[in-house]
């Protein structure tokens, strides 16, 4: 028990330091010896940090919603297909799908940039969700594993009742893999919320930028207002924290039932 408390303390320390620094005057952030409780609680750091963050926040929310909903839709369809439907070349297609995950993104960055530029997608949000949604490798794999764990009798009963393939998928099978959907959704949300590289490369206009970029922009070339940056960072982690507390039960179940537990 004591070990767990100590470990929890160690893991929580950076988070607590961030919150503490976010409430301090700038001079106190790096004071030596370090202090944990601010001499003055500077709540105005939050108003200063939040000033101007809203557009970045809304862009991040929009992209997270598009990524999560779109990816869940396509990944569940593909996962069901690979798990339950029989078609020519299924195994080869699945192997090819997994193989695409092995190619480092830097390899195709410039061709991808040229392609997006050609179709007018640079400085739009499309590159930040359309490719993710249409190539959900990990989500497809995880949901395929989950669908494979659902008893076939359910599908056979639906077939006897006259359900179509899509009807069986949508009304019978999908509700059976809710925990896996929650897990894929949570992981997709985190990937989208924390994505720095995509917005960095494909966006130019500040009005389209997302929260990770906003945080980096707090870091000045020659000096950084660390207290304001920590306040902004604290605000940034609130949505993922809420999501985690709401979905943690499904998240653990989903990872477990898909056979990916360690």
């Amino acid at each position: 028990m004591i070990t767990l408390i100590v470990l929890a303390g160690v893991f929580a320390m950076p988070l607590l330091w961030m919150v503490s620094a976010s409430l301090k005057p700038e001079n106190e952030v790096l004071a030596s010896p370090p202090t944990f409780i601010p001499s003055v609680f500077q709540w105005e750091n939050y108003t200063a940090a939040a000033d101007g963050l809203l557009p970045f926040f809304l862009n991040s929310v929009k992209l997270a919603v598009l990524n999560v909903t779109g990816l869940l839709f396509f990944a569940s369809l593909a996962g069901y297909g690979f798990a339950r439907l029989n078609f020519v070349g299924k195994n080869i297609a699945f192997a090819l799908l997994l193989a695409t995950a092995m190619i480092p993104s830097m390899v195709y960055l410039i061709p991808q940039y040229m392609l997006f530029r050609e179709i007018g997608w640079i400085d739009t949000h499309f590159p930040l969700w359309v490719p993710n949604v249409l190539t959900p490798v990990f989500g497809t794999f995880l949901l395929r594993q989950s669908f494979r764990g659902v008893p076939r009798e359910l599908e056979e009963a639906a077939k006897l009742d006259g359900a179509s393939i899509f009807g069986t998928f949508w009304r019978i099978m999908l509700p059976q893999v809710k925990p896996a959907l929650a897990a894929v959704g949570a992981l997709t949300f985190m990937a989208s919320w924390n994505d720095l590289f995509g917005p960095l490369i494909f966006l130019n206009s500040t009005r389209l930028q997302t929260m990770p970029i906003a945080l980096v922009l707090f870091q000045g070339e020659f000096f950084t207002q660390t207290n304001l940056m920590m306040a902004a960072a604290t605000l940034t982690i609130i949505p993922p924290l809420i999501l985690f507390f709401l979905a943690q039960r499904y998240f653990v179940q989903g990872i477990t039932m898909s056979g990916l537990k360690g």
Partner: protein
Amino acid sequence: MTVDQVSRRSLLKTLGVASGAALIGAPLAGCGGGAGGSGSGSGGTFAFMSWDATSDTQLYQVAQNWAEQASREIDVQSVPGGSDYETKLRTVLSSGAHPDVIRINDDFVQAYYSEGSLLDLTPYLEQDSIDADDFYPVAFNFAKQADGAHAAWPIMTNPGVIYCNVDAFEEAGVPLPPTDWDADGWTWDDFLDAATKLTKPGGERWGALLFHDTALETVWPINNGTTGIYSEDAQSFTLADEGSTDALQWVADLALVHGVHPDFGTVSTGKSTPNWAQSLFGTGQVAMLLGLTSAIPYLRENAEVNWDIFPPPQQATRQTVNTMTVLAVPSESPDPDAAWDFLKYCVGPEAAEIFAESRGFVPVATSSAELFVADDQAPQNLAMVSQALANAVNENFGLYIERARTVYRPVLDEIWSGRQTAADALGGIRAEVEAILAGQG
């Protein structure tokens, strides 16, 4: 059914509805683009790719002012600095999406020019009869290449100075350094003597902090009579010369022998923390700090002690290092004429006034010296920034200095830790570094 379950489900349902609405509405509302990633030729949106160009910086303001007077719409593409900026810059240049003007790391100008990515500005300089004498030589001559091309143009500079905690000097009864760059005295011995008297035991206050970076690697060796890290043609690793190794050993001994400087292990750790050195100085834990003038805005806002700026101590000579904010025109800039007009505006009098408001970023025109007059805030010796710039040198840039850095920097830790002498450590890698500088590494 518990309240907890109800609220979770309700919230998830609400999120689901919101997701659906966003999915339907978003493609209509926000995926449409901006400028398309590049400038669009004469009369269209002018694209300026930069870093740290959020709306509260002087550079951003100057860009907006230029656009207004030139009746151009400007798209300031603000990309976070460091390696992220380099990745983006490489990507846009490789894929043909050239901005009209780019900001560029002074370390990389030569490399970008040699691969054909930057426009030679010489025809524009000649066409507008730009007089080199109107600018600080250390800035104007920086971008001149071996073939005579003018590959870029610095618009602001940051020379190195010594920041002094005036309160600490008074308390210790130590005379402040001179305010005249050319004054006699204020030698390395004087610096060590002052640092010794200013140091308080137990780490309460260190006499000096010389951040080990390019500034230190340049200032101390050149003041000991060498050319700094590299020879002027960037082919020899002069940091391994006797004058340079003596200088670095002298610095290392501030911590290892004299105990007037934080140990360099602590300094290395602090380097990864934003504002670490300025914060130590501003809170009175360090009495003398070698730093660029770009630290002035931070200290004006945050320092708790009275402070001022002074020249570095001299040995064979008294010079300092210079770093710059550099702009360049991509070789395939959609509108090079407008780009040149923008560059000229950035070094002109209107921009100089805006840059000088920071009190730490020095415009490149010599006439800007008159803008650096002390006000009611520190530093009172503000005119020192112009003196420093007039006595500054650049690092001797070459094509391969970035790679050379990856070899010699780790070896410097051997010196700072006292595991090897500077002569042994740097002498041992001279051949390897020089092979890299010759393009054979």
